[in-house]
């Protein structure tokens, strides 16, 4: 098993190089960039601000609203600009992934908008987007119970690996590819999980250990970038 070769030479549990930066959109209340190697997402947070139209306001608690979008030129074959069924679903998934950590109850009648854009894609874009969004929320000073870290765990043939690239998503040998994006809180709770492919239930349970291990490194990068931004001020 140790001989398993990944196309880019990484170890089975090795993340691509992480890029993490905050303050990339000066107009926003908070913003961040997060990258796994060639996959780069930026996120900007606006709010809390009064929800409009008024009938959408929730008098009991605030609303977290996320939009995920891929720029038309972020992939090899141009994507038609504008929302797609896929992007609408990922927007909602992102919202669900972040809601448990954002103390949105503190802002009744208000909305916090999180805009995520993928500027360059090589798989795991939703995970990069969630990581950027969590940083941008913290950067905006929105009260949070925890950070979240998101990573895609893959199964290539029978081998579990961390942080899939496009070439691995299209794995053709043996049992083919399985892609499992997972988002965890600091204490290891699952706020998001999806899966496409084929995997025995027992092996699926093993993916959380890999996601936790990767989460530590992602968390470290997120916190480092946030700290640096504060020190600069």
């Amino acid at each position, binding site marked *: 098993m140790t001989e398993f070769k990944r196309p880019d030479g990484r170890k089975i549990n090795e993340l691509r190089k992480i890029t993490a930066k905050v303050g990339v959109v000066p107009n926003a209340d908070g913003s961040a960039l997060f990258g796994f190697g060639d996959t780069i997402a930026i996120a900007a947070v606006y709010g809390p601000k009064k929800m409009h139209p008024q009938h959408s306001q929730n008098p009991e608690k605030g609303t977290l609203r996320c939009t995920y979008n891929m720029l038309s030129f972020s992939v090899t*074959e141009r994507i038609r600009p504008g929302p797609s*069924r*896929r992007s*609408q*679903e990922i927007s*909602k*998934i992102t*919202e*669900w*992934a972040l*809601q*448990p950590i954002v103390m949105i109850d503190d802002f009744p009648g208000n909305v916090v908008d999180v805009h995520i854009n993928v500027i360059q894609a090589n798989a795991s874009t939703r995970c990069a987007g969630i990581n950027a969004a969590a940083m941008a929320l913290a950067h905006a000073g929105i009260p949070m119970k925890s950070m979240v870290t998101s990573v895609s765990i893959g199964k290539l043939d029978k081998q579990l690996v961390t942080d899939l690239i496009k070439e691995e998503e299209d794995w053709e040998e043996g049992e083919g590819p399985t892609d*499992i994006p997972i988002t965890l*809180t600091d204490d*290891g*709770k*699952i*706020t*998001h*999980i*999806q*899966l*496409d*492919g*084929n*995997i*025995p*239930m*027992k092996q*699926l*349970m093993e993916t*959380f250990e890999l996601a936790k291990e990767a989460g530590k490194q992602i968390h470290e990068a997120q916190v480092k970038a946030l700290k640096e931004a504060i020190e600069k001020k």
Partner: protein
Amino acid sequence: MIETPKMTGERIKEYLQEGKRFDGRKLDEFRKITIETGVSKNAEGSARVNLGKTEVLVGVKLDVAEPYSDSQEEGNLMVTAEFLTMSSPRLDLGPQPFGSLELARVIDRGIRESHFIDLKKLCIKKGEKVWNVMIDIYSINDDGNLLDAAGIGAIAALKTARIPRYNEETGKPIFGEWTDEKIPLSKETPISLTVHKIGNSLIIDPTKEEEDISETRVTVCSSNGIVYSLQKGESKELSVEEFQKILDLVEKTEKKIYKEIESNIK
């Protein structure tokens, strides 16, 4: 409007803590499932599924189309869902709720990733003509768990679907005339099941009232312990232990539902 009142929600939670539900079911018990196939003569395959008062209709239509650029030798699969305004007092005319888009995508991925349909056998001429398999799901009455009803309906409709006659000269199907050929399907039947978390309880097949207070749900498409697709919906976090329990519940229930489908399809 017609949302479940808070008081009712609280009472449902209290009941669940004692392992009870309003309608007398156990936490891991489905409502009565009825599956009827052939509900539209003009469809290639169709099914009506009732889970208690919940009802969905699923139809399969085939057409001839060009293959996608990344699958030149494969038929195409498309799943759509529409929550009909007739199916709930909460729905208004206008754009569909997010739930219908999510439902279609979750059902699509379960069928696609499990390779339930052998799309390679649906190629007519490489790079030029393939069969388009379109699965359309409609809610008729929403009393909770449209997701699982749709999954069962899609399987039943596919299992009974016939391929239309194909006109070699025009390169088009002859609508309304069928061959004896069935859609090529795998031996394994992938079953899509959703487990909901309410308080500390895990339940399956929620009624609308139960669905309203559900804090999170996980839909798993699997067969014999192999998971093909999975999606967590709604925002409450889950521990890894809870996730294990969800998989256990899915594995146990999947076999029952499979038998139910098989015994209902002629």
